[in-house]
């Protein structure tokens, strides 16, 4: 006993998870310490619903938990072999669509895409690599932008617009041609008022936005995901 009569609950993998009106399944899960894999979601921003890693089965139907409002008596399946194998396939597609050469990436060990792949036991990217040419922009004195590693989560777009009030980034193109763009006539980061102290410089889940002259400062063994997996790290308060 002890649950107030007003509190509403859903179940996730059989566990009772309380929620209040307006919370998504993801919000309720995060608050209850239940990990649902996610890449484009960051609780500090409005949901985006693009990566589809957070798809769960709700009363038998697949839905994105970061956008789906929780409702009384929902029965949610999350950590199942079927869903995790779909999630692994999604992550593998992200790996072959971009150019992810982890041994040569400063984000390695701190990267959420890589950590999600470890969590999902991805041993190879499985699919045929696209090897698409993607731009690297080193024009800014303090920040690199490497589109080879961009997964189009739009967290930098949201952070720059909503927190920094600058609107430095945008998305352009459609389908496989979709790209992150920089809002400057030249298209170069160096020609914007982007600053290393901006929120948008620190929300990228991958190594696409990197602060210069910081690479490899943290030795192997002390990086975010060296000993703890992403389900542990993302359940810690203030991890983002």
């Amino acid at each position: 006993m002890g649950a107030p009569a007003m509190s509403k609950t859903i179940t996730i993998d059989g566990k009772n998870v309380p929620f209040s009106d307006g919370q998504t399944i993801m919000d309720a899960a995060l608050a209850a310490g239940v990990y649902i894999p996610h890449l484009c979601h960051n609780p500090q921003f409005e949901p985006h619903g693009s990566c589809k890693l957070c798809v769960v089965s709700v009363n038998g139907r697949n839905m994105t938990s970061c956008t789906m409002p929780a409702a009384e008596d929902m029965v949610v399946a999350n950590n199942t072999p079927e869903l995790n194998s779909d999630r692994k396939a999604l992550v593998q597609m992200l790996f072959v669509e971009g150019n992810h050469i982890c041994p040569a990436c400063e984000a390695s060990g701190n990267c959420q895409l890589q950590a999600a792949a470890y969590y999902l036991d991805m041993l190879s990217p499985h699919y045929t690599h696209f090897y698409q040419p993607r731009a690297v922009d080193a024009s800014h004195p303090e920040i690199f932008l490497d589109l080879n590693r961009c997964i189009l989560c739009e967290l930098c777009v949201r952070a720059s617009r909503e927190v920094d009030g600058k609107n430095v980034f945008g998305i352009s193109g459609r389908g496989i041609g979709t790209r992150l763009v920089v809002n400057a006539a030249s298209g170069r980061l160096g020609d914007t008022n982007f600053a290393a102290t901006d929120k948008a410089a620190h929300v990228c889940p991958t190594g696409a936005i990197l602060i210069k002259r910081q690479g490899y400062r943290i030795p192997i063994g002390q990086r975010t995901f060296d000993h703890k997996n992403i389900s542990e790290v993302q359940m810690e308060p203030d991890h983002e």
Partner: protein
Amino acid sequence: MNEKRKIRLATCSLAGCFGCHMSLLDIDEKLFDLLGMVEFDRTPFTDIKRCGPCDIGIVEGGVSNAENVHVLKEFRKNCKVLVAIGACAITGGVPALRNNIDLWDCFQEVYLYEGGLEGNQIPNDPELPLPFDKVYPVYEVVKVDYFLPGCPPSADMIWKFLTDLIEGREPKLDYEMLRYD
């Protein structure tokens, strides 16, 4: 005598740096245990030039030229179980950084702009294998049975994997062993 037949093992390095082979040697004194269980076929350790029928083939490195394809196909044909070891075999790795640079530009940068001992010339001996425009992971050329990621995978990880495989268990890697770097 009732000695068990030894497992026959072949290894090779395609477009790799031999780092994965060095990591295999890093199992140190366990090499004696390994030699109790396996005998080597074609490897850089034995200097046998052609791969014969084997139980396990381990391939390091991606596919960057025509010779790599011949070696890889020879391994696939002769090895019951084919293992891709290391980031280069599994994703193309660091050599694949050239994949979005024109091959001719690469050659000019390496051989023409700054001359070598023989002056400014692009090597063109018929003995040299034909380079490909891109570096490919081995699974995009032949079927691969197991993947052992890492750059390189640690000696502990290689040992765990090999002993699992040789002793008939499905290889399983702990969280801290699974690394792409």
